[in-house]
């Protein structure tokens, strides 16, 4: 996989597609092109390279103090291990007087205690420093310093993420899935719920985990101080496709975010003709029980809202890049690509697959 060698269409736009799955037979350039079709402002920090799920570097006022604390505790930990290995090797290999197997005499009984006193004393001091630092960081990140600019409800499903954007007036409310957009540089309140089992919301570069637990609403917040695409993944075991439950956070400059929001709020543009109309009818019949396309006849709520499917970079909760080929393969046999997914393999009549695919391509 060598996305990064692909064209960089603007100077601070990097390789966003590291997170997509690579399957043989699909040209990486396709998905790259698709993602770059999203405005240039979607920059991503290339220095993260392939390590986009790492959290030893972070972005935003929530991540920074935690990154520092993580490095700090890591350094303390490595130092402790090094010191103990050193003391052990010293203890084992230090030169001893001859007669090495004689049992130590009682006057030597107490002579090791100083090790315990000093060692425990130093440990106590270190632990209290760590505890104090922990409390400071906890207090700093438990809530944002500024009022959130946006409230986002994330609902966990087996095995995808529903994202409901609240808004005022109510006509600004809309729903999307698996790819959430946020404005750069401002805290976003995230409320977490689950429709089935426990999931956990985790965008490593932005914030740690908070669980989505049925019967309760948890709250967390995220903030990105750099435009970019941040990968996240469910981190509480939630069944067969726990591994296939990723999501992306796209942080954009506020004006780009507003554009995106307006586009998402709008119903689907269903002005197609000919084959597209056939495709839409087939979609309503075959897929409409579970999926919604706002403005059309499909209003199911079991699966992701597909009103603006083509605006997303991935399908199947981050599993596959959103290309015509994958989309078609996914509809034809979701169980092969994501064994156990709740999307059934629907038996389609001849031509229906192509028609549905063609229709979905119009959901910009």
């Amino acid at each position, binding site marked *: 996989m060598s996305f990064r060698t692909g064209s960089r269409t603007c100077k601070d736009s990097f390789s966003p597609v*590291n997170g*997509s*799955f690579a399957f043989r037979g699909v040209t990486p350039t396709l998905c790259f092109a698709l993602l770059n079709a999203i405005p240039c402002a979607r920059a991503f920090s290339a220095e993260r*390279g*392939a*390590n*986009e*799920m790492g*959290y030893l570097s972070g972005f935003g006022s929530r991540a920074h103090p*935690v990154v520092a604390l*993580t490095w700090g*505790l890591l350094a303390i*930990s490595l130092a*402790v291990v090094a010191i*103990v290995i050193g003391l052990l090797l010293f*203890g*084992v290999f*230090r030169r001893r007087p001859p007669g*090495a*197997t004689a*049992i130590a*005499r*009682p006057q*030597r*009984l107490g002579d*090791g*205690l*100083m*090790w*315990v006193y000093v*060692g425990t004393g130093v*440990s106590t001091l270190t*632990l209290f420093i*760590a*505890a104090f630092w*922990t*409390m400071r960081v*906890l207090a700093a*990140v438990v809530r944002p310093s500024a009022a959130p600019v946006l409230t986002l409800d994330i609902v966990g499903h087996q095995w995808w993420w529903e994202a409901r954007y609240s808004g005022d007036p109510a006509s600004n409310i809309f729903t999307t899935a698996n790819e959430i957009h946020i404005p750069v540089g401002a805290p976003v309140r995230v409320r977490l719920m689950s429709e*089935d*089992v*426990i999931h*956990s919301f*985790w965008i*490593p570069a932005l914030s*740690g*985990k*908070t*669980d989505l637990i049925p*019967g309760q609403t948890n*709250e967390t917040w995220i903030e990105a101080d750099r435009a970019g695409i941040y990968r996240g993944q*469910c*981190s509480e*075991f939630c*069944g*067969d*496709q*726990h*591994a296939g439950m990723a999501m992306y956070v796209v942080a954009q400059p506020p004006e780009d975010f507003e554009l995106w929001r307006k586009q998402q709020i709008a119903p689907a543009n269903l002005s197609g003709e000919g084959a597209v109309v056939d495709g839409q009818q087939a979609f309503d019949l075959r897929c409409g029980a579970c999926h919604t396309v706002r403005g059309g006849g499909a209003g199911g709520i079991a699966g992701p809202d597909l009103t603006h499917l083509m605006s997303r970079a991935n399908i199947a909760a981050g599993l596959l890049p959103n290309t015509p080929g994958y989309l078609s393969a996914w509809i034809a046999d979701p169980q092969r690509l994501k064994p*156990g997914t709740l999307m059934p393999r629907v038996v389609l009549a001849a031509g229906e697959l192509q028609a549905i695919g063609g229709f979905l391509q119009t959901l910009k």
Partner: protein
Amino acid sequence: MALRQDYRVPAIAVAGYDSPLATRLEAIWRTPPGWRGVLSSVDHKTIGIRYFVTAFAFLILGGLEALAMRLQLAGPQLRLLTPEQYDQLFTMHGISMIFLYAGPVLSGFSNYLWPLLLGSRDMAFPRVNALSYWTYLFAGLFIYASFLVGAAPNAGWFNYVPIASREFNPGPNIDFYALGMIFLGFSTTVGSVNFIVTLLRTRAPGMSLNRLPILVWGTMTASIANVLVVPCVSLAFLLLWFDRQLGTQFFDPRGGGQPLLWQHLFWMFGHPWVYAVVLPAMGIVSDGLPTFCRRPLVGYTLVALSTVGTMALGFGVWLHHMFATGLPAMALSFFSGASIIIALPSAVAVFAWLATIASGRPVFTTAFLFFSSFIVLFVIGGVSGFMTASVPVDWQLTQTYFVVAHLHYVLIGINVFPVAGGIYYWFPKVTGRLLDERLGRWNFWTMFVGFNAAFFPMHIAGLMGMPRRIYTYPANVGWSAVNLITSIGSLAFAVGILLLLLNIAVSLRRGARAGANPWDAPTLEWSTPSPPPQYNFVVIPTIASRHPLWEEQLGEVEPQRRSRLDQGYVLDQGRETLGTTALDAEPDVILKMPSDSYVPLAFALAMTVSFVGLLIQHPVVACVGVFLLAAALVAWLWPERQLAQTAAEPIEEAQHV
């Protein structure tokens, strides 16, 4: 003082293992030969070995499950296992290692060693001891039977609801686990009660609490903890089974229940359990290391107190498994602080071991290699635990491979390595033969290198954001290389375990004869022949220090007040041992010990029938099981003449028998 009719003051005599008294005891304590003995033995040494062998069988099964998972994860997007198979494997791997190996293997050590360490002839309740083993075996088989119907537990070993509820898990998978754990909890509870009473009542005269080996401190602490927390998990699984099969809604928010209730109940048990499966193992090191350092443990009192202190704090840290569940920051900070501070007693122990090595004169046996390298693994597992104790950091670390690395450094580093060292240390006592030291070096280095190659990279996978419990991962998130290294390392570690088993198999037949005390070790068990006779001690010894066999060399006790190992109470009117007072171990009563019996086996079988009845929801089978249980209980409690105390002439003076 006038003696009551049923009082008897036993004779005090000097007798060795070749005396007529020994021959008489041999006849009194002999287990029937053949299958009768196998099914009816209540001897703590037999039961200890059984615990040990059974635990190792589950270790091997759990290891095979792990290897299958490691093959699946060796590269990205592999399709060796289906997601469902993977879920069952990681769940059974956890159950096997944590419940069916780590705890029971230490019960094996303690069952075998306690009476020998304490100067007694058996555990306080030998039949309960047999029952504890049989129920452990059958509960383990009960859970493993789920594989036969292709429906092994599949929601992880901590089995969160609602993924474990009937709605999302309609098969029998979780029922095997829920009922099996209630069953197993019975075994753990009666076993723990037995350890506690044994400790309080059957120590040899003079073995006051401050003279106990640290292993005894560890197992006692673990046993008290088990008695307190096993009810939590048994209740949790019972309520879950009610939810699943009777339609109650303890954990279902739609009926007013709470998914988090499960997590609280489980971890109130789960965290102390973690300490229960490491404290006795730390005790093995605290007792074994000094032998090979040729000096007593530095800071005995501090180490004993740190054992108890760890457990005391261990009751108050369960919430650190739940930092991401949305609890208020005030609660989090309290539990975070407690979880950081719990490292202190461990620091005491670590520096005591280091000081023991540094101020001693190490003898480089295989056991020493295991014990000393354990210190490093302990500290690595400790500092990664310290990192997860910090809430903001744990929000990142939890549920990643960093935690997987941490818990394996804890459970393998602090359980398997001391156990392996303990095998090298006590194998000669148990079998009369030494393990091969040359093969032992190969064994140690393969295990040590393999273990670190397998599990150290998991820290890095975790820091790179790899969640645990995923059956596969994409190629381009950077996790491929570390996973391949881990898979190769796990194979090497498996070879290391095989070398241990090979050494045991070879040395059982061809090992060098050990003699009573091949290591010149200080504690009481080494005063008995190897292997010890069934009655352990010809006469009940009198203990004057922590190191009865080193008193002369250490010179810490005046010659006339030293421990007397060949002179003590003669208890030979049936199976008998001495009961002593709880704190000072003053002679108190003669304990009549039961003969071998089939009843514990029958009782455990009846329990199995009952649980199978509940599992298949067949009222007749369940009722038959309960009826059999009642019958077994009646048989158990049926008065036996031989257990009645008999009057005898008080004998005033010591005599040679």
